[in-house]
């Protein structure tokens, strides 16, 4: 349970960090390390070089404006979670963050780090996907914005190039007449969920005009399903059941030591109904 040897650099500027990455194809970026260090300790990963970006200036921001929330690469989950402006502009972000591991892990782990780790069992990649956000990365060619639809390309795989560093994530603001909700079920609070669902529902009066849900731990990449058609404008037992079936067509729950595939599918159905209903009610009240 000890990492394999690696070279360690802790650059003071983004340029130096990019040079360090460019010089070593086997290099890996270390930010919070709450997912990376266990992988190293279990020797599931053994990069030749770790580029520790914790000293880079100007990357620990949480900036909130009317159009959304911008989270810098060194903003810890805990800092994003306790920012009251984040909750006001995009309440789904703190709803999900409260379920990211335990408080102790959130003190060190970074939200952007979780996004580029690209784990389909993690909350924030799914939330970024559901909100249709984006990720800004900097590489030798300069800065580019990756829309989330192009970010997640495979299990634990993002479209970042090895010589790029993710510097900022953008979570769009909550739209008018729209509600959000999040719920997950785990064996113990703070563990990886057996299934988790988030929903975004937009209404006109009592009518649902747009609804989508994001799923974690029931597919191998962060997955979002458009439920607008299945709900057909209303929230009822029948429309919610239709929505859950529509979602399951695009999910692929698997059996592991924590839960069977059938049980995960059951959770996806139950949580879809629960979370879509909650998001609908929040949209009608125009609060969360």
């Amino acid at each position: 349970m000890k990492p394999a040897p690696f070279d360690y650099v802790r650059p003071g500027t983004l340029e130096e960090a990019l040079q360090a990455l460019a010089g070593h194809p086997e290099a890996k970026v270390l930010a919070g390390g709450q997912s990376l260090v266990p992988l190293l300790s279990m020797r599931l990963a053994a990069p030749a070089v770790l580029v520790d970006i914790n000293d880079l200036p100007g990357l620990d921001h949480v900036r909130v404006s009317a159009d959304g929330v911008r989270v810098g690469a060194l903003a810890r989950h805990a800092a994003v979670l306790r920012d009251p402006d984040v909750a006001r502009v995009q309440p789904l972000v703190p709803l999900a963050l409260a379920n990211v591991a335990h408080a102790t892990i959130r003190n060190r782990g970074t939200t952007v780090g979780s996004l580029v780790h690209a784990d389909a069992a993690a909350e924030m990649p799914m939330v970024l996907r559901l909100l249709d956000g984006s990720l800004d990365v900097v590489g030798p060619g300069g800065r580019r914005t990756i829309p989330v639809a192009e970010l997640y390309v495979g299990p634990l795989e993002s479209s970042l190039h090895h010589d790029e560093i993710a510097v900022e994530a953008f979570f769009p603001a909550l739209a008018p007449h729209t509600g959000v909700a999040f719920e997950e079920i785990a064996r113990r609070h703070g563990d990886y969920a057996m299934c988790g669902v988030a929903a975004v529902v937009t209404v006109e009066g009592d009518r649902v005009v747009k609804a989508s849900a994001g799923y974690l731990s029931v597919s191998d990449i962060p997955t979002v399903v458009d439920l607008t058609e299945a709900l057909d404008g209303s929230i009822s037992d029948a429309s919610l059941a239709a929505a859950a079936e529509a979602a399951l067509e695009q999910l692929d729950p698997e059996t592991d030591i924590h839960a069977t595939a059938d049980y995960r599918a059951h959770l996806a159905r139950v949580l879809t109904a629960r979370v879509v209903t909650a998001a609908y009610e929040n949209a009608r009240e125009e609060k969360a």
Partner: protein
Amino acid sequence: MSTEQTHEIRLNVNGVEHQAAVPARRLLSDALRHDLGLTGTHVGCEHGVCGACTVLVDGQPMRSCLMFAVSAAGHEITTVEGLSRPDGELGPVQQAFRECHGLQCGFCTPGFLTTITAGIAENPDPTEDEARDMVAGNLCRCTGYQNIVKAVCRAAELARSDEDGAA
């Protein structure tokens, strides 16, 4: 076999500056125990699940098994050894664990003590639910947690009366 490169680091632990030469892969938990001889920090799972190795980094609880010692340089680390009072008597959280029988074998205790020290600094009067939430990231296989939750509330009470006494 090439010799592994080491880094000269300064670690500020419990207000004392330590120097050590460590390879980059040295976990903070191992540096505390093996390089500095501070064996109060316990190592359970070594992948961030059990919480036994929790220390305070600039006052915030973090897993010392999920940080490298080289990354911890320049930060103020507090371990269980730093939680007693200046006169050597038990600190409020330690005292509460003794009074409430909050430990049996004691292996997980250092991680609970550091976590709760930071927890009651942030929330000086936790409800029982908040106390449970505070320790949710720490595993204990002996106590069943009932007395640990009691100890959180008692520690908060002791810390508050310390504050009143100081005021």
